[in-house]
């Protein structure tokens, strides 16, 4: 039912393969051009271009910001925050998830806290983080960490609980000491779900990052967006938005690519 049926069959027979792929690519992305064209047309006619800058100008300013390097340092700070927050939530979340699935005391201890954090939208914790850590990198890392923790814990918990019991029995039968079993059997068997959890967490991490930086930061991409809009430089603001969206997009894509490369046994 998708546009796979749409293939221009005649072209397929007559044209060389790379060119075909190019035509196909262009055809696939025409709607975006239409949307951008409409936007280009609307800004300046329906809405003043000072309020809604046309995409061509945004694209130019994006290039300019990247070329002059104005935004690079902020982007680095933001990516650092996302990276550290994600790394923390992966390491703690996997430990917690696997631990809770395999051991009842651990589950009894931590479950109630997770149940309490679960219904809070994590952005609402930013003021609390400001109280404890002030305005800056630590606050953003804490929010990213908290926002990503639950999907990772839930995924690794469910997977660790559903590990094939035969695997564990075989390992035991072959004389593996019981302390080694979580490390050698349970975690490898849960890795596919953990990776899914991480993929779910990446877009969440970027939302958490931007909300933390909008409210409590003096640097970083979210702060740049706020600063540009406060001085009325909307073209620059949209350009920064394009950059952070591209970063989020390529983070997910790059992660999926890496996952396919690294996880070969599934």
């Amino acid at each position, binding site marked *: 039912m998708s546009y796979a049926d749409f293939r221009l069959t005649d072209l397929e027979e007559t044209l060389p393969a790379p060119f075909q792929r190019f035509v196909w690519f262009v055809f696939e992305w025409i*709607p975006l051009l239409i949307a951008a064209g409409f936007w280009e047309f609307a800004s300046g006619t329906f809405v003043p271009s000072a309020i809604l800058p046309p995409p061509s100008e945004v694209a130019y300013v994006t290039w300019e910001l990247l070329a002059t390097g104005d935004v690079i340092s902020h982007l680095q700070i933001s990516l650092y925050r996302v990276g550290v927050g994600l790394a923390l939530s992966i390491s703690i979340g996997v430990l917690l998830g696997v631990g809770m699935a395999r051991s009842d005391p651990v589950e009894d201890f931590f479950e*109630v806290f997770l149940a309490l954090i679960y*219904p809070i939208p994590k952005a609402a914790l930013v*003021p609390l983080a400001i109280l404890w850590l002030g305005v800056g990198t630590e606050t953003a890392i804490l929010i990213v960490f908290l926002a990503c923790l639950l999907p990772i814990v*839930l995924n690794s918990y469910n997977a660790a609980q559903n590990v094939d019991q035969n695997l564990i029995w075989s390992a035991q039968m072959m004389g593996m000491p019981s302390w080694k079993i979580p490390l050698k059997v349970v975690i490898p068997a849960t890795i596919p779900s953990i990776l899914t959890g991480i993929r779910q967490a990446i877009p969440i991490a*970027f939302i958490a990052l931007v909300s933390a930086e*909008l*409210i409590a930061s003096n640097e970083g991409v*979210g702060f740049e967006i706020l600063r540009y809009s406060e001085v009325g430089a909307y073209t620059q603001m949209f350009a920064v*938005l394009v950059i952070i969206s591209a970063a989020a997009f390529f983070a997910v894509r790059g992660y999926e690519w890496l996952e396919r490369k690294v996880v070969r046994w599934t």
Partner: protein
Amino acid sequence: MDVSNKLAVDRSDAINVGKSIYSLVIVLVLWEIVTQLGMVHYYFLPPLSDIIVRFYEMTLDGTLVHHGYLTVRRALVGLVIACVFGILVGVLSARNRVASWFWDPIIEVGYPVPVIALVPVFLFWFGTGDLAKIILVAIGCFWPVAINVRNATRDVDENLIWSARMMGTSDRQLLRKVIVPASAPGIISGIQIALPISLIITFVFEMVAGGGGLGHIEIQGVRSFDSVQVYATLIAIMILGFILDRALRLIRFRILSWT
């Protein structure tokens, strides 16, 4: 561990209840002792009793109720608008080739945009009132709803459709009687993903722009160095999030009782 099912009252076994909340009790008692002894600065961690008293006061004088109402109204109206458009676009692009050709790349590109970053510009376009918040919530929630609806509708078992067609179902009926019910679980999952996003956008908007709401009084607590207010508001936010999450689960359970 169904984290979210934990607070339900279907655990009759008192021992199990004790087991599952003993850690919370320990931490809360420790919190009270440590703060009463003055081991932590009052600003970072006020005593639990103070927070509960403040929460009680703020509920009684209607502050929390009023601001909670503002927040819920913005989040839910935005969410409903997003659901209407998201379901429409999702179903269309799963069932219609032209719509699929048009919407697929747009959804693909629009989904990863952190819409929350548009808060400052919406503030400028639409002011600090409800309108700006509702529109931004609608835009932010549109993408997850649309993507989930599209995937769910696309994966409807072709056999169902063929059987219905064979028995003479018209196109319109097919949509209403077969496709939408068959993809309902996916549609509701999309709404469940969008619910926290709607709350996040509302809170962040309220924190940055003001205009009332729980997010606004929470950040106000930070600005006036009144940490008790921050904690009390957080309790209200927790309760609010819990109620909304529960309500959506209940709806899901009601609608999908046949699965």
